[in-house]
């Protein structure tokens, strides 16, 4: 076979992978839009599709303007944006550290933001954007601390994960303590910071989420090819021309930014970052990039999880409880699959 032949075949293969990726992304987008339509139309009462569209177009529809415009729309938008952030950040983190268990919520990155937010609300009695800013700053600070503590002439993924788990355990007990000290013990507000919730979502909260998706999301997508090459192992990736240290640092900064901003708005919604990447890898063809599908799946998880928590289950639950409960069967599934495949986690 001539070299020309080979390069033509490689090009053809690449085109087919990229076509399939586009198809997958479009399909997920369709699922997400269907979910959005469902959550906008159907709540305690049914709003006809035409009324929803008129509210979205800015008309004043008696009744629907309040339920759709004030209640359902902000909630859906915040859910989608936060889900995109969690899904993208989680998948990038798992890809970088090469373990489906190493997602930002497990290795302590969200815990820093949560602890700061609880401190600001309970101890300093702050409200509004100041809380978010502090949560982001402390999330970044926690990540830096984890990175520095894991540093010993270079950072190994294993050490980073374990240091993260240690820091996270400490911060969890701090969060629990501060919540118990709160003068007016409010379970709802507390749960937001323990498991995450989109209750009381407001449209202005979308601004920081959009900004962080714009900046950090772009960085991550730009690093996507490098991250994929690093799946082959550090040595091979370096041979392929990936600048390992730079890719690693950029990815970590972007992951932390995405997760910290989203946590500051909706709390650490359990397991969205943890579940999105593996689900995406499962439905994508091998070798296909998972970052965009993972982001879309994260958005769908939060949106539909919140809907299920509000209307489908007996009683009303914050979204973090629903997604957290989803994580347990996934863990068991992971065991079964690994046992059958004899692979490694």
């Amino acid at each position, binding site marked *: 076979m001539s070299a020309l032949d080979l390069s033509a075949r490689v090009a053809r293969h690449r085109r087919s992978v990229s076509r399939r990726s586009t198809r997958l992304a479009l399909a997920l987008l369709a699922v997400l839009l269907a979910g959005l339509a469902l959550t906008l139309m159907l709540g305690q009462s049914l709003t006809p599709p035409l009324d929803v569209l008129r509210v979205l177009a800015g008309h004043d529809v008696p009744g629907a303007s309040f339920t759709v415009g004030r209640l359902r729309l902000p909630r859906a938008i915040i859910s989608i944006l936060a889900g995109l952030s969690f899904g993208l950040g989680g998948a990038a983190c798992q890809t970088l550290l090469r*373990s489906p*268990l*190493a997602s930002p*919520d*497990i*290795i302590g990155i969200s815990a820093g933001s949560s602890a700061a937010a609880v401190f600001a609300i309970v101890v300093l009695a702050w409200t509004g954007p100041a809380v978010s800013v502090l949560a982001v700053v402390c999330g970044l600070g926690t990540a830096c601390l984890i990175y520095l*503590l*894991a540093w*010993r002439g270079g950072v*190994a993924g*294993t*050490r980073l*994960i*374990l*240091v993260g*788990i*240690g*820091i*996270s*355990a*400490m911060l969890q*007990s*701090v969060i*629990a*303590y501060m*919540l*118990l000290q709160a003068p007016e013990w409010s*379970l709802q507000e507390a*749960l937001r910071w*323990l*498991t995450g919730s989109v209750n009381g979502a407001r449209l202005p909260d979308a601004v920081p989420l959009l900004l962080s998706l714009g900046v950090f999301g772009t960085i991550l997508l730009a690093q996507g090819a490098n991250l994929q090459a690093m799946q082959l192992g550090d040595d091979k990736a370096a041979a392929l021309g990936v600048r390992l240290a730079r890719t690693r640092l950029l990815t970590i900064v972007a992951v932390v930014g995405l997760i910290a901003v989203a946590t500051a708005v909706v709390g650490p919604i*359990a*397991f969205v970052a*943890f579940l999105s990447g593996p689900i995406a890898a499962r439905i994508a063809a091998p070798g296909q990039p998972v970052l965009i599908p993972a982001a879309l799946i994260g958005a769908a998880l939060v949106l539909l999880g919140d809907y299920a928590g509000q209307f489908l289950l*007996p*009683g*009303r*639950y*914050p979204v*973090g*409880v*629903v*997604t*957290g*409960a989803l*994580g*347990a069967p996934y*863990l*068991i599934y*992971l*065991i079964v699959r*690994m*046992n059958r495949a*004899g*692979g*490694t*986690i």
Partner: protein
Amino acid sequence: MITPVSSPAAFPSRRPGSVRLLWLLVALAALLLVCGLSVTIGTRDVAWSDILAGLGGETATIGQSVVAVRVPRTVLAVLAGAALGLSGAVMQGITRSPLADPGILGVNAGAALAVVIGMAWFGLASLGGYLWTAILGAAGAACLVYAIGSVGRGGATPLKLALGGAATSIAMSSFTVAIILPRNDIAGSVQSWQIGGVGGASYDAIAAMLPFLVVGFAVSLLSARNLNMLALGDEAAAGLGVPVALSRLAAAAGAVLLCGAITAICGPIGFVGLVVPHLCRLLVGVDHRWQLPFSALTGAVLLVLADVVGRIVARPGELDVGIVTAFVGAPVFIWIVRRRRIREL
């Protein structure tokens, strides 16, 4: 792959008997000292005459009643510390992981979930009921995490066990929250399942827990010889005539009994089981026949001391002992992670 708990270079495998005896005496003296501190130091300053009278059983003045409360609290702290220290040492022996601890491995979260399920759906209200359910939950979580941690290549590595434990904890906490949320009648008691403390000690609780502790201590201490063999690796232990699976199961049952019973009475107290065995290996070497009883003794000292510190630093209030141990334990955890080579994790 075999990962010995300690490399020979770091710890001498045997200490001369005189050194061990010396440390034993030091530990006993330290225990007496911290117990004395625990009875005399607290939020309220009590005169020496009242302390002596209170120890004699008098409750006529406020000072004497305060002492009457501090005595069971100290007893509970001693028992809890001993049980958690021993349980951590046994878990580190079974898993050959330097990072094993009832908190890190999610066993405490399992006990808490089981008790909450019992309270919500089975009308659980008696001390004995709490104890049995907590132990069942602890055992279930221990099996689950060990299964998650040991699938795939390389068996149960410290990294996989720690990740599996962290993920399981998050899932179990979500279930706990989901159960409590619609139930205002039991929401008040959720607080004690967030952070462990010994503040509410009573002789009734101690008496209810005592039979479980006695069995747990006996089973754990009797497995010391088998743990020594298991430290050589499964094949070597089997070659020496140790029933590997059975002795591992028996030792695990003892450890789970201990930490489940303590979690039922005190709530989840993390990191005692992690820190103490490492200290003991430094002092008396790696022989489990010395290390296990010594871990119990040192655990008691650590927990009583943590309780006293919690009363001093947060005057006029007090810090729950679970917070203090987290702040002592997390840095030790990170120190252990940093000290090891990647390959060993």
